């Protein structure tokens, strides 16, 4: 006899009893999402109407001051090389990609990419810093600095509405080994509460965990303006938060572990439209 099957059945029965017994209980909110579709969806769906409205309108989006400040930096010559981002790439929305023919459009939809210099995945933040140190010969931005968050937002925004692509699951994809490690991380229980990402975001999307409605934990909105943070934050900040909430020791910003996880999450979210800069609770 398979015990798991029994307990799952019990849990299911329990859940329907809960539904029957608790209609009208204050604060009790059933999951309206699990039956809507089994496919992938963005955390936008479980955000409140007010939060969605902020994201829908750039004049209301509280992340825009960071992006505007970054747009100025984008045009400003900097570093020993005294060049700006625009000198090489053209305007952020220049689809021909300026002098070097490398447009910002599409970056947010396809990163993390494989970086032949380090033989590792590279995300937008790390690419920005590579351009700063290598081409501008300027100082790298700190990972979670206002400049970096704004610049990442500016770059990612150029892919708004584009579908996330990833072929990292193909055995001959250069990211494949990193994708695999990311997948292991995603399913590994950790922390004093002994939970894996999958326990919350794969097994329970749409469900309430106390007052929070769980989403699938997708990365298509990052960087994200969180009302709780009162500023935009990176995906790695979110990873650290989700780790600390279950009393697990977080990894560092830009660490290999989080880069693998980011590579894996991008794959999980393939097909989702890029939303940067999203707004969440």
């Amino acid at each position, binding site marked *: 006899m398979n015990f*798991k099957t029994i307990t799952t059945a019990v*849990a299911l029965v329990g*859940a329907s*009893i809960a539904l029957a017994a608790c209609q009208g209980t204050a604060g009790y909110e059933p999951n309206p999402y699990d039956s809507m579709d089994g496919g992938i969806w963005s955390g936008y769906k479980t955000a409140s109407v007010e939060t969605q409205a902020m994201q829908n309108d750039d004049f209301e989006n509280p992340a825009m001051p960071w992006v505007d400040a970054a747009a100025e930096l984008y045009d400003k010559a900097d570093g020993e090389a005294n060049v700006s981002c625009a000198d090489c790439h053209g305007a952020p929305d220049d689809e021909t990609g300026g002098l070097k023919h490398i447009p910002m459009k599409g970056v947010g939809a396809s990163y993390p990419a494989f970086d032949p210099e380090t033989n590792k995945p590279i995300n937008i933040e790390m690419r920005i810093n590579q351009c700063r140190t290598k081409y501008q010969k300027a100082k790298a931005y700190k990972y979670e600095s206002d400049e970096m968050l704004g610049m990442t937002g500016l770059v990612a925004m150029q892919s708004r509405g584009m579908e996330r692509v990833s072929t990292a699951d193909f055995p001959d994809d250069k990211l494949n080994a990193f994708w695999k490690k990311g997948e292991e991380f995603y399913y590994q229980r950790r*922390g004093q509460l*002994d939970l894996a990402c999958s326990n919350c975001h794969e097994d329970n999307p749409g*469900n309430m965990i*106390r007052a929070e409605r769980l989403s699938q934990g997708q990365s298509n909105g990052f960087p994200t303006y969180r009302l709780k943070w009162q500023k935009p934050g990176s995906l790695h900040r979110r990873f650290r938060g989700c780790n600390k909430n279950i*009393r697990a*020791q977080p990894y560092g910003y830009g660490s290999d572990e989080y880069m693998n996880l980011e590579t894996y999450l991008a794959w999980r979210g393939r097909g989702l439209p890029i939303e940067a800069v999203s707004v969440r609770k």
Partner: protein
Amino acid sequence: MKHAKLMTAAFGLALAGTIATGAQAAELVNYKIVDETIPQSLTGKPGDAAKGKKIVIHRKKGNCLACHVMPIPEQQFHGLTGTDLNGVGSRLDEATLRMRLVDPKVINDGTMMPSFYKTGQHRVLKKFIGKTILNAQEVEDIVAYLMTLK
């Protein structure tokens, strides 16, 4: 299966001894698992149901409401990822409830429910290394409270 679990409990003990540096590590009491239950009280003392109710609500202790609906209407927002605990005291006996709290993975190794009286999980935040979420008496208090949910 049960042997393995006993060994894990012992391993947890060993870890608590070696890693926890000074900062009052929880001394895990020995308990015996019989048919996926723990028949004996962890402390030898009866639990206090009123205290148990406070602990299940407390967000840094049981925080059971994160996942369970319970007959505590004065608290807003009950989570839905776990079973409704209304009437659980009639469905399950004390020994099973104790097992559920101490280490529910013995009953269902795929469960989302944390083990409230166990150490040795992967990558525990430094300040919690070697510590259990609840102490033995708190487990007993919750068991006593759950038994009142008839």
